[in-house]
């Protein structure tokens, strides 16, 4: 993907739906299961990723003319690690209870293939505004995936949302166990594939599959 000709809005949409990190590209899967046992954790994780992805794209795009291609990988890693440290320390300071549960996974945003990949294939070749839009889109796509998964898992597993009880009765405890995370992601992925196939056969166009599903 060299210089892009897409409009900014198309770039954002691209990241949100057709190249959704979790459901389409299937990279950076670790947190999709690890932190989605409650809506709150998923929300914080999603917001952190939006921040890091956008800022990394912005920074890489700003310095793209000064980076020697031979040492670009260490430079990208340092940029990413810098922003992750910022979010890590801010969360440790302001969101203590959540940080206790998902702190490790926040630190591991450093090793996200998706963030690195966007810097490598997009930001380093494009101007600032498209890069920011691309980062924002990718981040929001990840955020939406987190919200969808954690919504179902908390609702089914605890009968609650954001910690407030919604449904009484016996919840399906398995959904908040580790195994439930795998089931939830697998079933949702299968569901989106099915939606895609349905829509594609109806009008030969599948871009809006996830919009309707989400």
């Amino acid at each position, binding site marked *: 993907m060299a210089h892009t000709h897409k409009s900014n809005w198309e770039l954002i949409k691209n990241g949100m739906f057709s190249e959704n990190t979790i459901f389409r590209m299937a990279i950076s899967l670790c947190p999709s299961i690890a932190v989605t046992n409650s809506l709150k954790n998923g929300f914080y994780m999603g917001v952190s990723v939006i921040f890091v992805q956008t800022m990394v794209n912005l920074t890489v795009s700003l310095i793209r003319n000064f980076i020697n291609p031979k040492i670009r990988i260490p430079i990208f890693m340092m940029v990413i690690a810098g922003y992750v440290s910022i979010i890590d320390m801010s969360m440790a300071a302001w969101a203590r209870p959540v940080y206790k549960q998902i702190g490790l996974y926040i630190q591991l945003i450093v090793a996200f293939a998706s963030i690195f990949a966007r810097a490598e294939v997009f930001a380093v070749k494009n101007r600032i505004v498209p890069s920011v839009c691309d980062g924002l889109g990718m981040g929001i796509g990840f955020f939406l995936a987190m919200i969808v998964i954690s919504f179902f898992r908390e609702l089914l597993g605890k009968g609650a949302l954001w910690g407030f009880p919604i449904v009484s009765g016996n919840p399906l405890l398995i959904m908040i166990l580790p195994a439930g995370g795998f089931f939830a992601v*697998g079933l949702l992925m299968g569901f989106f594939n099915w939606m895609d196939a349905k829509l594609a056969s109806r009008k030969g166009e599948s871009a809006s599959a996830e919009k309707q599903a989400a």
Partner: protein
Amino acid sequence: MDFERLFQLVVAASLINNFVFTRFLGLCIFFGVSKKMETAVGMSITFTAVMVISAALSWVVFEYVMLPLDITFLKIIVFIGIIAAFVQSADTIMKKVSPSLYYKLGIYLALITTNCIILAVPLINSGERYSFLESMSFGLGSGLGFALALVIMASIREKLELADIPAPFRGLPISFIIAGLIALAFTGFSGLITL
């Protein structure tokens, strides 16, 4: 240092707190390379070796450089730097010293740098303030646990090639569900040892 505690750490890291099934780390590689048994085995060997050595290296740096200088807030940046440098040099050395081994395992080395498990081990080690030997045992246990998960998954997925799966579930979705079933089995290990 008593041997018993080290053994407990290895068992705990590989079975009870298995990285893939209870901590959900390294999933990209777990789903990416578990299609064939051969690659799964190659990956596990490389992984375990890198994990033990990087645990040792980062322990030394953390304990003797970062703590005295009081720069522990930089640990994410420093650890990823150490690992990247180590993997790069291992790659170069292997190419010179043993080209046949490099031919077999070199491709996995390149994949390892940006992997969350490799980074998680030093982070957890420094968080728990393990001693040098404990850090290495934890690295070893985690590596073995990952290898176990990878081998189980690869053997199931090889059989899966022949199964008749509904079209939308082919590929990743069904692998996720299988991983869920294995994770359910692994919950049985919890309570095996209390540390």
